[in-house]
Structure formats: structure tokens, C-alpha cells
């Protein structure tokens, strides 16, 4: 009965201590900002004048590290201990009003301004050394994990990321302080991660927007940040917009790998015995017996009367066959648009009595392929992709997506044209 009271009392005293420490640390960083951050500014500017290597050797100021630790500790202290611990890493932490007031008491704004100044110089540095930027871009755009020219790409990536790493503690501290949800915000706003529900609000968004290139470079060199300090970037929908595709995909693949090994441990691998002539039916029947968790395990496909160990090749073949079969008109599951490129569910699919089970099966196949990183030569209509992402499909979108009825009438054509141009204007 007394215990929680004492605990919370202890918490409070601790917090007081931490508050003092934080203030001290912030004060130090703030006071010495002219030398610490300022010197960083000068040395970085110096780097522009042709000696980038010296900039890389910049070491992080210990006060900055201290600040990061203190903010982190403060945050974990202020987090409601009743909150489900297992979920801790999956969501954005919430900040109580008390914490917000605490943090507001310390003037961190000037520190963030310094940070912004430093980062803008780093971007200038990147912009000025054109070679770096282009090479960096090359590296960025390389879509597959196997880098075609790893030597060059890595070197340049390091020089940029090395510079950035020097500012990492402050960037992380910025996220710790700003990228958390306000306890006071209402449920709806918190669920939707609206700007109002975030401590940082617009300034957080502005920071991410201005520094998106740098943040992406940072995340590319240290992807684990997305599970730690910078996890707001993947959890807040407004932030994900600023992430590059390859960064997102890398994070996504890691999440999938984690889930797969968890499931494999629990349920073993997903073994399918398939007859070549009945690939679709056999897969359908065998998958329908398993639950979602079992499906996540490592896939092993064997074809009847064939010897072979599935080291990926048979799975690839299996998905290749399914990607064709699911559009087989005999199943009446999908219809193609007139250009024959994209597919969407057939509204008359119910001629196939088990059609909904089949759709579920096809959804699982697509999901399994995406989860395990197999590619499917299957292109769906944009509206189906939107459904899959949980985006609202707008009426006019449908209207126009598959060739509008209007497309020969003048009014609509001009409407379409105006829509086209609209999309291309900033």
C-alpha cells in the first residue's frame, strides 16, 4: 500500500536531482555554446576550404553526451511505469505536462538554433563539394543491398556521415525532447500523431524537413537509430514522408527479419509440399491450415517427386508460378485494366464459390513475398495499393484512375489537365 507512494516519492526526488543535473549540463552546453558549438561551426567552415578530413576527426563534446543521457534518463523517469513495457520500443514516448514544463524551464531553444546552424553548414559542405554529393546520391539510389561499387560509395558515405556523427548526440537529444507525444493531447490526436500532439510541434517538422538529406545520410550509415533515438522518423506519419525509399526499405526488411526469426523459433519453418501441376491449389490448401504466426516462419518449398533443397531458388520459382496463376482468368479473381498492365479484384469473382478464401490466400502470398523479400511480377491498380496502405481512396480518384468517362468531353479533359499540372507544381 505504501510502496507506490514511496516509489513515486523517490522518483520525484530523483527527478529533482536529475532536473538540477540537466539544468547544469544544459547551462554548460549553453554557456560554452560559443566555444563548443561555435568552434564546431568554425572547424566545419574550415573544412569547406578544402580539408574535409580534418572535420571528420572532430570529436563530440562530452557535455553534449551528458545532455543526451540526462534527457533520456529524465524521460524514462517521467514515463508512466504502468505502460506496457514490451511496447516501449514500438511507439513514441509520451511526455507528461510536468516534464514539458521542466524542459521549458531550461532554454534549449538556443541550443537547437546552434544545431541548425551547424547542420546547415554541413549541408553547404555537401553542396559545395559537388563530387561528394553526386557520389552520395549514387550510393543513395543504389537500390539493392549489394553495392555495385562499394569502395567508392563507402568512402564518401563515411566522410559525410563522420561529420554528422559528431552532431549525433545533440540530434538525438533534440529528438528525445521534441519527438514525443503530449500526455495532455486527446486520444484522437495522439493516435494520428498530429503535429499538435507532439512536443516539438511545427519546429520538429521544420527541422526534419530542412535536414532531410542529412538525416537520411545518417540513417543510412547507422540504421539502428530508427529503432532507438530517431524512431519517431518511422512512427510519425508526417515524418516518414521525408525518409528515402532505401532507408525505409532497409528498416522494413529488418523488422521482417526479426519477426521471421521469432516465428521460426516458435513454430519452426513453413514447409510446403507442392505438386507441380497443382501449385496454386496445393499452396492454397496448405496455407489455409496455418495461422498468421506460423506463416511468418522461414519458407521451405519442395516439389513432389523432385529432389532439391530449398535455399531460396525453389521459393523464388514457387512465387513466380503463383504470381502468374493468381491472375489466371479461370479463377476469376482479378480483372486487368484495359492496358493489361495492372490488376484489380474482379467484382464477379463470386462465381468461384470460395472466392473470399482465395482472396485471403492471394493476400497472404503477396504478404509472404514482401515479408521474405521475393519479388512478384504482379502489378495491381493504384487504388489497391492505396487500400493496402490504409490510405483513403478518393472518389474522384477512382473516377479518373481507370480512364475517366469524361475523357472525351472538353470540360473533363481540361479538368484532367489541370490536375496533371497541379501535381507538378510545388
Amino acid at each position, binding site marked *: 500500500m505504501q510502496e507506490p507512494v514511496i516509489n513515486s516519492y523517490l522518483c520525484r526526488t530523483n527527478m529533482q536531482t536529475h532536473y538540477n543535473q540537466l539544468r547544469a549540463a544544459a547551462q554548460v552546453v549553453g554557456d560554452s555554446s560559443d566555444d563548443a558549438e561555435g568552434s564546431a561551426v568554425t572547424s566545419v567552415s574550415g573544412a569547406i576550404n578544402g580539408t574535409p578530413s580534418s572535420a571528420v576527426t572532430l570529436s563530440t563534446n562530452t557535455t553534449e553526451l551528458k545532455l543526451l543521457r540526462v534527457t533520456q534518463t529524465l524521460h524514462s523517469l517521467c514515463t508512466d511505469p504502468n505502460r506496457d513495457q514490451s511496447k516501449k520500443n514500438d511507439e513514441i514516448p509520451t511526455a507528461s505536462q510536468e516534464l514539458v514544463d521542466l524542459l521549458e524551464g531550461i532554454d534549449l531553444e538556443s541550443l537547437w538554433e546552434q544545431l541548425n546552424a551547424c547542420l546547415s553548414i554541413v549541408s553547404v559542405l555537401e553542396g559545395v563539394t559537388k563530387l561528394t554529393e553526386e557520389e552520395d546520391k549514387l550510393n543513395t539510389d543504389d537500390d539493392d543491398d549489394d553495392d555495385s561499387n562499394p569502395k567508392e560509395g563507402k568512402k564518401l558515405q563515411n566522410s559525410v556521415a563522420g561529420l554528422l556523427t559528431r552532431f549525433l548526440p545533440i540530434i538525438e537529444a533534440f529528438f528525445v525532447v521534441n519527438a514525443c507525444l503530449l500526455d495532455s493531447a486527446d486520444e484522437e490526436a495522439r493516435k494520428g500523431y498530429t503535429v499538435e500532439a507532439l512536443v516539438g510541434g511545427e519546429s520538429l517538422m521544420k527541422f526534419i524537413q530542412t535536414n532531410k538529406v542529412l538525416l537520411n545520410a545518417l540513417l543510412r550509415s547507422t540504421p539502428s537509430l530508427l529503432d532507438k533515438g530517431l524512431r519517431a522518423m518511422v512512427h510519425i506519419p508526417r515524418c516518414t514522408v521525408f525518409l528515402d525509399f532505401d532507408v525505409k526499405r532497409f528498416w522494413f526488411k529488418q523488422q521482417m527479419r526479426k519477426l521471421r526469426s521469432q516465428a521460426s523459433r516458435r513454430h519452426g519453418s513453413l514447409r510446403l509440399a507442392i505438386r507441380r501441376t497443382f501449385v496454386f491449389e496445393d499452396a492454397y490448401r496448405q496455407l489455409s491450415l496455418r495461422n498468421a504466426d506460423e506463416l511468418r516462419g522461414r519458407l521451405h518449398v519442395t516439389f513432389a517427386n523432385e529432389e532439391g533443397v530449398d535455399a531460396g531458388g525453389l521459393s523464388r520459382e514457387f512465387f513466380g508460378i503463383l504470381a502468374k496463376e493468381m491472375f489466371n482468368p479461370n479463377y476469376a479473381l482479378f480483372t486487368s485494366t484495359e492496358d493489361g498492365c495492372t490488376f484489380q479484384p474482379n467484382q464477379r469473382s463470386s462465381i468461384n464459390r470460395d472466392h*473470399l478464401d482465395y482472396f485471403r490466400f492471394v*493476400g497472404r502470398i503477396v504478404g509472404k513475398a514482401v515479408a521474405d523479400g521475393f519479388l512478384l511480377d504482379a502489378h495491381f491498380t493504384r487504388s489497391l495499393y492505396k487500400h493496402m496502405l490504409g490510405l483513403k481512396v*478518393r472518389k474522384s480518384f477512382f473516377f479518373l484512375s481507370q480512364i475517366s468517362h469524361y475523357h472525351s468531353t472538353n470540360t473533363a479533359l481540361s479538368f484532367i489537365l489541370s490536375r496533371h499540372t497541379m501535381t507538378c507544381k510545388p
Partner: protein
Amino acid sequence: MQAIDPDYYKNLKMILDYNLEDIGLDLTFSTITHWFGRSQTVDLVPNGRNIPVTDKDKEKYVNLVCQHRMTTAIEMQIKAYLDGFYDLIKPKLISIFTPKELELLISGMPEIDIADLKKNTDYQGYRVADKEIVWFWNIMFSLSKSDKAAFLQFVTGSSKVPLNGFSDLQGMRGTQKFAIHKASGPTGALMSAHTCFNSLDLPTYSSEEEMKEKLLYAITEGAGSFQFS
């Protein structure tokens, strides 16, 4: 809609083009679905079967009918498909992607042969030797794999490369080669695309750098806000 059911499309177009009285159509805000011999009346708005459609609100009617055909009619199918997909991948995880990125995630980065695309391109308002066209192809050859994919999505609406090469590129009315039209806008304007016709409206530019910048802007920044295709 035309892509899915050309006859139906023709009927709807007729409704829009002519006075309802002239073509003697008695419509209500409902539609009849044919289910292999059986037919069933579905209201498009509450009590729709008793609300007549007038020339004034026939656009709304067409809109509703389309929406019905495109979503409501396949709602169950989509739901079942999504249930299966979400068995493997939680909505929260996948929602970090945009529709175009999802397509690339499922189908992979396409191998795009720019030389083949160039060979199968029609020009309108431009000639092959024009400097804009020369610049354009220079830029295209210099693009990264993912930018090429983004360009293909921008122009055709999908990252799919035709099996037999770009000579076989399909559009609204069968084979429709990639076409570059001269846009009438001012020099340096942004380019736009018509995914139905696989065509690109290319304004004039003062330099190759400017064209490249605008092209990259159109295919990358445009991607997020591109609601049309």
C-alpha cells in the same frame, strides 16, 4: 471504367453527353447488379431507388455508380485480400511507404532499357534533333535505376516494363508508344505527364541542368502528391 467495361462506359458517357429526356432514360439513384441470371437492386444513396436522377445531378449519379462498380462492388474481395496481407505484414509497418514505393517493394526495381524506350518514342512539336530532345535523352541515360523507375511510374502510371519492350507499351486504346509533346507553357515550366496516353508534356528549357532539375523534381516530389493515376 472504360478499361473494365467498355459498354458500360459508353452508356455512362451517353448519360453525361445528352439530356436524359432526349434519350428517354428513367434513372433513379440505384443500380442493378446482375449475378449470373439473378438481378438485385442496390441503392446508391439511402432510398435511392425512389429518387429520380435529373440532368442537374446526373454527374453525381455517374460518380456514385462508378464508385459502386469500383469499390463497393469489390469491397468484400478487397477486405479478404487485405486480411490475408495483414496476416503477414501489419498495417503500421507497411504504412511507411507510398503507393509507388509499395509497387516497387512488391515487384522490384524494373530493368529499364532507355535505348529501347528512345527507339520507340513519338514526338509532337519537337524533332529528334531539337536540343531539348537531345538533352532529354542525355538526362534519361544518366538517371539512376530508381529514378528511371520513378520516371516510368510518372509517365505510364506503373513501373511495369512491357514484356516485349517499349514497342509494346500499352495505353488506353491498345498499343500506345511513349510520346513527347511540346508543352505550350513558358520556358522552364515543370513537365507533366498523361499516364493514360503514356505521354510527357515537355516545356522548353534554357539548359540541360535546368531540365534535369525539373525532371527530377517532377518524378520525385510529384510522386507524393500525385493523386491522379
